[in-house]
């Protein structure tokens, strides 16, 4: 159960992570996929359909860059809609994670409460 929950959590923020990585600079799918696989343990295969969907939704734009060592590489950058989506998703995430942090915080404040009551 715990494992399944963890994967659902990651899935939920995957799009936000892709947007955030692309906000730092244009990149290609392999780089983003291996980065997210290493940092949050997401399967590399899940990134490709996700980026395709994001591109179809107009969040990403792509362009080809010639490569000296092989075929041209497809780079992605954020579109205007992508930047808007990033800032609104980032804000949702921050509000949400602050609220969860408050809920999860160890009850160190209880002693203060008890002291006040006594």
């Amino acid at each position, binding site marked *: 159960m715990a494992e399944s929950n963890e994967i*659902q959590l990651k899935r939920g923020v995957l799009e936000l992570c892709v947007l955030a990585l692309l906000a730092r600079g244009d990149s290609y799918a392999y780089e983003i996929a291996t980065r997210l696989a290493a940092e949050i343990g997401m399967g*590399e295969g899940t990134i*490709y359909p996700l980026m*395709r969907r994001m591109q179809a*939704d107009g969040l990403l734009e792509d362009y080809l860059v010639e490569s000296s060592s092989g*075929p041209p590489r497809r780079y992605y950058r954020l579109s205007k809609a992508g930047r808007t989506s990033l800032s609104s998703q980032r804000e949702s995430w921050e509000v949400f994670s602050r609220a969860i942090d408050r809920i999860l915080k160890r009850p160190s404040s209880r002693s203060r409460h008890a002291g006040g009551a006594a």
Partner: protein
Amino acid sequence: MTRMEFMRRLQRGLRGAPREVLAAIVLDYEGYFDDGVRAGRSEAELALALGDPGRVASELRLEVDARQWEADRTMAVGLRIAAGALGLALVDSLLLGPLCLAVILCAAGILSTIALALAGCYVLVISPFDDPAGGLAAAILHGIGLIAGGVAGAAGLSLASTWLIDALSWYGRVHRRAFRPLFLPQKTNNSGQPS
């Protein structure tokens, strides 16, 4: 699995998709292998990281068909979506059917072992008054035997059905996590931009 094998099975799973869409997907995954090899990984390792190509293809396929349906509500596209969903359902029922059948058989088995034990009770209680053929002791042993057999059978079968239900719930979880994210586009994409 080799790169060729992966790409072949991916393309077989995407047969019938619009040509430019197929080409873009093939480019994506070829690019993945190119970049991975450039980074010093083996093709087999890269294919393993992507997962089962048939599964990848059917997820992509449903996404592609759903988009086409939004743009172009024709009968052909609608039928293809229905066929794709049915195909997945068929795969699932091939897997789930026998499991469900086994659960039902287990339940029926448990009921019949209970009946066996009840029959044993009957033999044990009634036979002393009924002048049994093989003598009183034989009838009592017969009754006890039936009860013991029934209880042992019920215990074995309930253990087996616990395993089966574990298997079903595992399948349900895997299934849900494989599909939900692709099927439910996030609302923020389209409606989250007020300006």
